[in-house]
C-alpha cells in the first residue's frame, strides 16, 4: 500500500472489489449506497477503505437517497460513486436525470442481475442495457461502459470517473453478477501511471461566474459549493445563469448542448476491443461476461475454418454506430449474444440497416451462454446463402 492508502501491485480479487479499488485510485472520496446483491461487496469494500484515505462512506436509507447524496457530494467538490443492481438502479433513475440536468460528474455502478422485479438476485443478467440508455425521463445522452473482467472493473472504473469529470455527466458502469463475483489477477499500477481527470474549474471572478456558460467546448466549468460563487442550479430548464426559463427556445438550447457534448465527442469516448476482425465474415458482438464466451466461440469457429471475428463493446453508450456501419458493408453477419431477450441487438440491427444478417442469441438470465450456442449461431450464419 502506498503512503496515501491506495493499493499498488498485483492482487487476486473479485470484480466488485476491483471496482472499489479503481474508484479509490481514481480519487473517489465519497460513496453512498444501499445493500443489494450482487453489488454489496463494492459498498463493503468502500466502507473499509474510504475512512483510511480520509474519504466518506455512508449507507443511505434507499437507492434514491444514495443517488442524491452522490450528487450533493460532487457539488461539494468530491469525486463520488454509488453501486447497485436492478431494483436499486430503477429507483435511481429520476435523480440520474437530475445529475444529467445539473451536469454533475459522478459514477453509478450496476452489477446486473436477472429480472424483471426481484428476479434472480444472486444470478447474472444483462437486462438493464436499454434502461441505462433511456431509463430516466426526458431527452438525453449517456455514457455507459461494460467491463468483462476484474481487471476491466478496475480500469474502467477509473475511465468512468475520468469521462464523468471531463464531460460533467453521470457515467454508468454496466457490469454483471459474474464479472462482479469472479476473482482473477488484478494489476494496480503505481500512483500517477493512470492519468486522472478533474472537472474544469471556473476562471471567472466570483461575481461574473455563470454556472452554465460554456467556453467553446460545450462543457461549462463547474464551481465548487461553499467557495463564494453563490450559484443557483435547478432541475428545471435553465439558461447560462442557471435560472429557470420556461419556453421551447431555452429547452432546445440546453438539451441540444447537453446531447451534443456527448454525441460530438463520441469518437473519443468509444472504446472497443476486437479479435480476428480483419478478414472476418461473421462478427460476434458482445459485452460484459458474454464477451468472453463470444471470444471463445469465435476461436472454436476458426478451428473449424469459419472466418469469424469478435468485437467487445467496452463502451456501450454512446453506441459505436460508425464502427458497426463500416463493418456492415463488408461482412456477412452480426451475431449478438446477450443475457436478455434482445436489447443491444436492436442497436446493431439499426446500424447494419439490412446490409448484413443480424442474429440475436438471447438468454433469459440466471447463467451465461454456453459457447456451443454461440458457435451454432455462427455456423447457422455461415451456412446461409
Amino acid at each position, binding site marked *: 500500500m502506498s503512503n496515501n492508502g491506495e493499493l499498488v501491485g498485483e492482487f487476486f480479487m473479485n470484480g466488485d472489489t476491483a471496482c472499489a479499488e479503481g474508484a479509490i485510485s481514481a480519487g473517489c472520496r465519497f460513496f453512498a449506497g444501499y445493500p443489494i446483491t450482487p453489488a454489496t461487496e463494492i459498498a463493503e469494500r468502500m466502507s473499509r477503505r474510504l475512512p483510511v484515505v480520509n474519504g466518506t462512506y455512508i449507507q443511505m436509507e434507499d437507492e434514491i437517497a444514495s443517488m442524491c447524496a452522490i450528487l*450533493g457530494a460532487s457539488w461539494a467538490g468530491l469525486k*463520488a460513486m454509488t453501486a447497485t443492481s436492478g431494483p436499486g438502479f430503477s429507483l435511481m433513475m429520476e435523480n440520474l436525470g*437530475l445529475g444529467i440536468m445539473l451536469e454533475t460528474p459522478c459514477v453509478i455502478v450496476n452489477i446486473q442481475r436477472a429480472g424483471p422485479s426481484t428476479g434472480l438476485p444472486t444470478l447474472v443478467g444483462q437486462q438493464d442495457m436499454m434502461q441505462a440508455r433511456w431509463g430516466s425521463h426526458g431527452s438525453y445522452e449517456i455514457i455507459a461502459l461494460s467491463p468483462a473482467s476484474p481487471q476491466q472493473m478496475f480500469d474502467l472504473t477509473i475511465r468512468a470517473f475520468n469521462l464523468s469529470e471531463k464531460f460533467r455527466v453521470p457515467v454508468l458502469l454496466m457490469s454483471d453478477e459474474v464479472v462482479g463475483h469472479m476473482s482473477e489477477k488484478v494489476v494496480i499500477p503505481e500512483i500517477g501511471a493512470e492519468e486522472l481527470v478533474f472537472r474544469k474549474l471556473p476562471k471567472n471572478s466570483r461575481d461574473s461566474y455563470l454556472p452554465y456558460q460554456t467556453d467553446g467546448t460545450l462543457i461549462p466549468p463547474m464551481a465548487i459549493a461553499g467557495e463564494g460563487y453563490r450559484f443557483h442550479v435547478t432541475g428545471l430548464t435553465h439558461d447560462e445563469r442557471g435560472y429557470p426559463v420556461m419556453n421551447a427556445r431555452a429547452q432546445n438550447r440546453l438539451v441540444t448542448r447537453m446531447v451534443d457534448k456527448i454525441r460530438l465527442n463520441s469518437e473519443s469516448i468509444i472504446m472497443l476491443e476486437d479479435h480476428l476482425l480483419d478478414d472476418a465474415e461473421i462478427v460476434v458482438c458482445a459485452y460484459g461476461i458474454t464477451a468472453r464466451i463470444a471470444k471463445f466461440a469465435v476461436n472454436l469457429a476458426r478451428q473449424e475454418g469459419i472466418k469469424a471475428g469478435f468485437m467487445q463493446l467496452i463502451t456501450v453508450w454512446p453506441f459505436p454506430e460508425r464502427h458497426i456501419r463500416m463493418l456492415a458493408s463488408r461482412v456477412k453477419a452480426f451475431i449478438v449474444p446477450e443475457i436478455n431477450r434482445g436489447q443491444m441487438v436492436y442497436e446493431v440491427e439499426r446500424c447494419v440497416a439490412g446490409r448484413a444478417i443480424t442474429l440475436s442469441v438471447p438468454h433469459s438470465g440466471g447463467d451465461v451462454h454456453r459457447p456451443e450456442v454461440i458457435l451454432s449461431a455462427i455456423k447457422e450464419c455461415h451456412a446461409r446463402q
Partner: protein
Amino acid sequence: MPDSDREIYERSTARYLRQDRLPHIWCAGCGIGPALNCFLRAIDRAELDADRVMVISGIGCSGRAAGYVKLDSFHTTHGRAIPFATGLKLANPRLTTVVFSGDGDLVAIGGNHLIHAARRNIDMTVICINNFNYGMTGGQVGPTAPLDIRTATTPYGNFEPAFNLPWLLQASGASYIARWTVLHLHELELSIAEAMRKPGFAFIEVISPCPTVYGRMNKEPEGLDSLRNYIKRSIIKNGADTRDTAIDKDGPIIVGKFLDIQQPTIHDYLSLMKDKAQKQVKK
C-alpha cells in the same frame, strides 16, 4: 454583536435575495415569502459566512425558495432535498446546510429521508413550510392536513389522520424543534438563527397561509383571514410536550421552541470512526 433589527432587515434582503429573479411566483397572501425573509435575516443574526450557507429545496411552491436566494442554492427533485443536502454536508462539513421546502415535499414523498436525517442527527436545518396542501398543483390534500379539511382531492372532507410533525421529529432523533406561524416573524427569525448555529439536526415548522387554493376551500380566501385565524388559535408554549402539538381543524395551534438538546452528531461519530480506522490500518 448583532446589528439592530432594522439594519439586519435592510442588509439581508439586499445581500441575500437574488433580486434579478423578481418578481417571484408566490401568490399575494402566501406565507413563503415572509418565511424566506426570516431565513435571510437569520444569516446575519447568526453571524454566518454566507459563502458557506447552502440552500437546498425540493419541488413545489416552497421548493422555489432556492431560486430566489443569492447563495449557493440547489433546486432538486421532489422529496429529495434532504439526501442531496446530506451528500453536500458529509462531503464538506464546514458548510451550513439549510433545506427549505414544503410539507408535501419533505413529509410525504420525502418523509423517509426526513426521519433518517433526524436519526443521523446530521448538522442541517430543515425549514418546513406547512400549508397543509399541495399548492403548486392546485390544492390537493397533504400529509399534515387536519381531518375533515376540504381540498381539491378531499371534496367531502379529509379522511386521513395527519402527522404531528414535532412529535415525529423528536421520536426520530432531532436536536432542535420549533414551530411558528408566519404571524410570529420575529420568533421565527430567532429560531432559524439559533437552529443554523446549533450542531445537529434542527427542524422548524412554519404554519403558512395558502389563500389561493387551501384558503379558498376552507373559508380563508385572503392571507389576512389565515393570519386572523392564527391570532385566534395560536398559543406560545415553549418546551411543550410534542405529544400535545397535533393540529386539528379548529383547535389551538401550539407554537414555540419545543426541543433544544445537545447530543453527538453523525459528524462527531464519523471523525471518531475515521481516527480508529486510520490507527488500525497503520498498525
